[in-house]
């Protein structure tokens, strides 16, 4: 049972983490290759606090706030760049994060932080907490998608310049997406730190950023269910098949390539096309209700 619980918790954390990137990349169209840095920021913040005696649940807010604040700074610095340049800038953030952590003795430097206390209620407690928070985050995502914010995000993702001409404050909305998304990653990081109970700079490197991006791309940019399924599958696979774990970057790289080449709208898009084929005259005004 213990093993299944670990796998399930990991899977839920991966879903939460992938959804937080889905908000930035999927909903708002801003590609990020450095999202693992925010998972790390949340993980370090939370781990330092629980080691200082805080209960895990009390560290969620600080982890989200610290990740979100740094998210705003990165977001503000990235406002001028788009597309490929944004990908490269955010990739820089990923390297910057691991580079800084390595040199901080206070944060364990190369050695990382070990002996992170267990969550209240042990594995079961952590699993339940993760389950509730992941469901909560997905609920918020569904809500955001249907609100005016989702409507505005959709226009920014498609064409920033046109959104600007329509009177949308593109900068503000992009920053808001960064705040929400990075705070979500911070929350996932807090849970992750107490799942593995040992974190180091390598836990949040470039490979992890590519992994989470491939979950979003394979799931289908902006599709909540597609990304949930992709994150679940892609997080569980390396735990069942040692080969995949050994060649992680290769496997995810190939997945990214094939998804972009043959399935640009991912699993979500595939499901949508399948539905439309079966119901060709579904009127579009219904689809957004």
């Amino acid at each position, binding site marked *: 049972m213990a093993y299944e619980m670990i796998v399930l918790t990991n899977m839920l954390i991966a879903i939460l983490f992938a959804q937080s990137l889905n908000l930035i990349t999927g909903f708002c169209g801003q590609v990020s290759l450095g999202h693992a840095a925010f998972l790390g920021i949340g993980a370090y913040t939370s781990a330092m606090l629980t080691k200082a005696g805080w209960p895990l649940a009390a560290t969620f807010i600080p982890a989200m706030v610290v990740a979100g604040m740094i998210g705003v700074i990165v977001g503000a610095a990235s406002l001028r760049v788009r597309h490929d340049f944004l990908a490269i800038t955010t990739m820089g953030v990923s390297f910057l994060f691991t580079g800084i952590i390595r040199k901080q003795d206070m944060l364990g430097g190369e050695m990382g932080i070990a002996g992170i206390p267990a969550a209240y209620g042990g594995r079961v407690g952590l699993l339940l907490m993760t389950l509730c928070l992941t469901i909560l985050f997905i609920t918020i995502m569904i809500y955001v998608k*249907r609100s005016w914010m989702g409507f505005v995000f959709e226009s920014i993702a498609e064409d920033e310049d046109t959104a600007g001409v*329509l009177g949308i404050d593109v900068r503000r909305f992009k920053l808001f997406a960064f705040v929400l998304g990075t705070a979500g990653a911070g929350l996932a990081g807090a849970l992750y730190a107490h799942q593995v109970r040992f974190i180091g700079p390598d836990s949040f490197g470039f490979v992890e950023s590519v992994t989470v991006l491939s979950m979003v791309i394979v799931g289908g940019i902006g599709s909540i269910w597609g990304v949930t399924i992709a994150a679940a599958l892609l997080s569980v696979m390396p735990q069942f098949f040692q080969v995949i774990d050994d060649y992680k970057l290769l496997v995810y790289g190939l997945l990214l390539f094939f998804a972009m080449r043959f399935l640009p709208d991912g699993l979500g898009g595939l499901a949508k096309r399948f539905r439309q084929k079966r119901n060709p005259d579904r009127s579009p005004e219904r689809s957004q209700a």
Partner: protein
Amino acid sequence: MIAAKTSSLLLDVKNVTVTFGGLNAVDGARLALEDNQLLGFIGPNGAGKTTLMRAIIGMLTPSSGQIILDGQDISSRRLVDRINLGMALAQQIIKPLKDMTLLDNVALAAGSGKLLSPIKAMIHRSRQHEQDIAHGLLTEVGLADAIYKYPAELPLGFLKRLEVARALARQPKVLLLDEPLAGLSIKEAEDMADLIMGLPCKGRGVILIEHNLSQVRRICKTLYVQNNGRPLAFGATEDVLEKREVQMAYLGKSE
């Protein structure tokens, strides 16, 4: 024009110059738009018409000059502020949002405050009010039958109308139309020109950039002509078109 205070001046463009790498694409442009006026803006290809439009709306920053909207100097304001102060642009190269129906394309632009504040956008879900406005506008431009269609399903003539409806959804004081007739058939252009003729009203002036001179002559009482980025003429349409320098620059007549 003489008593600026008492006149119903909506937009005053004063000596606007836009420089691209040492070249003046627009050089000292001066024009004025009054309430309820349809101002034609003509000039040969490369005259800097679109550049001036972009400078007026804030997509480009002029190197000098002033832009006054309804008595307020907006020269240093960003695009989004200018649009929310009452300007709208229908672009020459139409930019429909292709994943949305025509109704949603226009409803989005009618969202006003929800487009400025993410918090407001987050707490509002219903699009009903904006869709009602959008429905009205799409009907006004003659697209009532196509509101649930996606842009990819429609010909250029429809999308040009969509672009106008979307600009109108901003309820602009100053509406800028960049070549709305370009690419349309003679019949479509005629219909579109009729539509444009009805757009100026109390509290709204329209600037129309257009190459279709016969339609411009038909619907605009006032013309502004620009050539090589410089203002060439400004005044009543018939007087302006009589001018020798306008004919030489624009119509290519030598005598």
